[in-house]
């Protein structure tokens, strides 16, 4: 390994995932285009991006279910090609789509899954009891899958992903379609797993989720990585501390340009990105004669929309 690459994030340990120039093509279409990133042990690493950005494809390559087209991808220090089963044995995966086994009860889902990892029944049984209590599903042990609510299914999938005591947990849109209670429960559990030293990789387009959970993240678009960093740093760097929202008029634009403030026009509104919201607001109100102006803290969503644009993605 190159000496320069090894210094990493101060942990001194080998990265859990290391991708260099990782590329995936489907025929003419390039889904993932030469991405380079590394995930350190014990961190929560997020992949953000609009639909079709290449997040899920990247997850599938890490999971060894989709072969890469080009570049290098190492998981646990092993090249993915040729080490699929060894790598998968140490990964827990929460898919975007619910793929619990509808032919079985809650308990049987976990038992059948434990067998795929060659876990003997005597070990699986206490583990299943512990996991069901971890995701608060102990009472649902003998319930058929179809009788579970969406949030319960999600929690069961999380429990299933933990059955092999994975060193790396991969979650693809873990809380999509959940109500706030269910979402918060999942977040709480993920934080608990993190505090136990698990490495977690997740994709999401809920920016609040990324902001709350991720130590580090990348924003992907059109198969490439646009930015990488800690959520707070990314907000400061790309949006400033605050966003001032106001009406889109030529006077406002002139004012902002005079101030040298970065802004964008969105749906008849101006969004100005600044570290000095008071000054900007005072100037706008005092010198530009406008009625409507509001300042709010900048969020990851501002960064996301600035970088990936506002066009609807199909």
């Amino acid at each position: 390994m190159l000496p320069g690459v090894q210094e990493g994030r101060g942990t001194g340990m080998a990265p859990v995932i290391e991708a260099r120039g990782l590329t995936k093509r489907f025929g003419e279409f390039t889904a993932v285009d030469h991405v380079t990133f590394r995930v350190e042990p014990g961190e929560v690493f997020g992949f953000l991006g609009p639909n079709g950005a290449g997040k899920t494809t990247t997850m599938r390559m890490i999971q060894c279910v989709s072969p890469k087209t080009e570049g290098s991808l190492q998981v646990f220090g092993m090249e993915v090609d040729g080490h699929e089963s060894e790598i998968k044995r140490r990964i827990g995966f929460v898919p975007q789509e619910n793929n619990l086994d509808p032919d079985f009860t809650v308990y049987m889902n976990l038992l059948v899954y434990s067998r795929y990892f060659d876990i003997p029944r005597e070990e699986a049984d206490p583990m299943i009891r512990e996991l069901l209590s971890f995701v608060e599903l102990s009472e649902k042990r003998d319930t058929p899958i179809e009788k579970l609510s969406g949030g319960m299914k999600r929690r069961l999938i999380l429990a299933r992903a933990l059955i092999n005591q994975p060193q790396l947990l991969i979650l693809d849109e873990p809380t999509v379609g959940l109500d706030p209670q269910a979402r918060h429960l999942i977040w709480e559990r993920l934080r608990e797993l993190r505090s136990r030293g698990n490495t977690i990789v997740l994709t999401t387009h809920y920016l609040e989720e990324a902001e709350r959970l991720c130590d580090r993240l990348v924003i992907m678009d059109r198969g490439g990585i646009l930015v990488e960093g800690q959520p707070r740093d990314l907000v400061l760097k790309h949006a400033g501390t605050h966003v001032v929202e106001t009406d889109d008029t030529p006077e406002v634009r002139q004012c902002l340009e005079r101030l040298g403030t970065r802004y964008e026009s969105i749906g008849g509104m101006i969004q100005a990105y600044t570290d000095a919201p008071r000054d900007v607001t005072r100037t706008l109100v005092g010198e530009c004669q406008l009625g409507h102006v509001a300042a709010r803290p900048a969020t990851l969503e501002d960064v996301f929309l600035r970088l990936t644009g506002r066009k609807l993605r199909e």
Partner: protein
Amino acid sequence: MNNPLRFLALPRLTPRVFHVWQRNRDVFVKTYRVNFLPPFLEPILYLLSLGFGVGSFIPEIAGVSYAQYIAPALVSISIMNAGFFECTYASYVRMYYQKTFDAIIATPLTIDEVIVGEILWGATRAFINTLIMLPVLFLFGVLDLPWSLLVIPFAIWAGLLFAAIGMCFTALTPGIDTLNLPTFLFITPMFLFSGTFFPLTLLPKFVQYLAVALLPLTHVVTVIRSLTLGIPSPLLPVSLVWLSAATVLAFLLAVNLMKRRLVV
């Protein structure tokens, strides 16, 4: 990538194949009452209506009673249906609607192992059906012992063939509706024209050749009839060779076609 031989590549397998088989067995056992009834009732109904009903107009066929003549065909058809339908509609539902295969390949299992486990389960269904049918047929007095006992291990082989053929169609079908095509264009004609209910020799010569060249059921019926009557058919060696080759071919094709479909 365009080398046609890649469709005959050997699968990489570990004993974990068994876990896929186990999963399907567990579902089967859960609903065993429904599953055991058809192979038990089917031979009784067919034997009563065709064997002893239609058969009462047929004093003798190929030297035996009509019931004796069609009994091995009933076993063969049951093997065909068990293997074929398990690995077409049932596998397709698990693959496409239930995402069961996706869930399994996130574990140490490979797609090769999932497909082989499914095919082995299809063969097991054929074996179970045979196991239930034989005692019923025996009670009707249409089986020769001990030769008929060899039908039991042979059922696994023939089941494997039909399961693998079914899996090839599952790998190729655009959707679940188009699985009706092989059912109507392949399985139904085979059910009627494979020397099942009347001797092949009644058919025009070229149809006979087609049946021998292309229809696996012809060969399965030949083998099983030789065993249940205790009289080897002159076609028996040909059938055994044909079945050996077809089983290997269909098995390898099934695994590789499914890989082409699922590994993206």
